[in-house]
């Protein structure tokens, strides 16, 4: 493109392309969930380190903090964090295996209708997500059925 030609319109999707998974596959939504849960977890981890440092302010300060965290809104947030951590860990196991090339099958001559490594590891994805769902539900049992 020479400098005399009229300007192209920049057509990059930007953050919308990152966040809006639209009609793409299940794995694209898992990617979004993994990112969001990861960002939530790291924000929580930093806050947790700062908040538990309150022990250095003495027994009363610590007990006050624990009483606050035992209140219902915090219990809900705690459960959501647990769910995020379980999802992130289970999806992370899937990524750990597949990003090193396992469970994706072997390269072979493409014959229509094409199969892809993404579709070939779908059974693994379903098993992992089912396990994650089970752990999230079981883990919340003490919250739902105290």
């Amino acid at each position, binding site marked *: 493109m020479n400098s005399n030609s009229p300007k192209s319109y920049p057509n990059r999707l930007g953050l919308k392309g990152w966040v809006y998974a639209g009609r793409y596959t299940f794995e694209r939504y898992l990617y979004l969930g993994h990112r969001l849960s990861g960002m939530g977890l*790291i924000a929580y*981890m930093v806050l947790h380190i700062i908040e538990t440092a309150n022990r250095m302010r003495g027994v009363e300060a*610590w007990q006050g903090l624990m009483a606050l*965290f035992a209140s219902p809104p915090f219990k809900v947030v705690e459960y959501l964090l647990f769910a995020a951590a379980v999802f992130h860990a289970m999806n*992370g196991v899937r990524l750990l295996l597949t*990003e090193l090339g396992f469970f994706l099958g072997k390269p072979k001559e493409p014959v229509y209708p094409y199969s892809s490594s993404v579709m070939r590891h779908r059974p693994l994805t379903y098993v992992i997500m089912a396990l994650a769902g089970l752990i999230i539900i079981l883990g919340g049992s003490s919250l739902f059925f105290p």
Partner: protein
Amino acid sequence: MRETRLWSLHLLVIPIIVVLLGTHFAIIHYAPVFYGMSVEEARSFEVMIERGRSIAQFVLYILLLAAGLYHGLYGLRGIIRELPLTPALAKLVDVGIVLFGLFIFGFGTYVTWWTFSFKIGG
């Protein structure tokens, strides 16, 4: 080779986090199941200090802190650097994240050491 090494380490700390964080969850959230004490008791100041005075807890907490911070901040660096940044801004993000991680690690290690060396009765 550098980016490959950074990513490999991001993967290598995963089992460390899974084991240590799972244990942490069991101790803190499932104390009635694993330790025969109520959740409130497990989080009380006295029990927390008592737990923190063991050498195993001291070492493992610092290991979990390092592993969790590295894994999380490598991911955060990836997310921020995927935005369109100038080379100078990209370098700033890298340096800033390392400094932030070192600061939080230092702070967390200090709190863990404080607990480990806490003298009951002052």
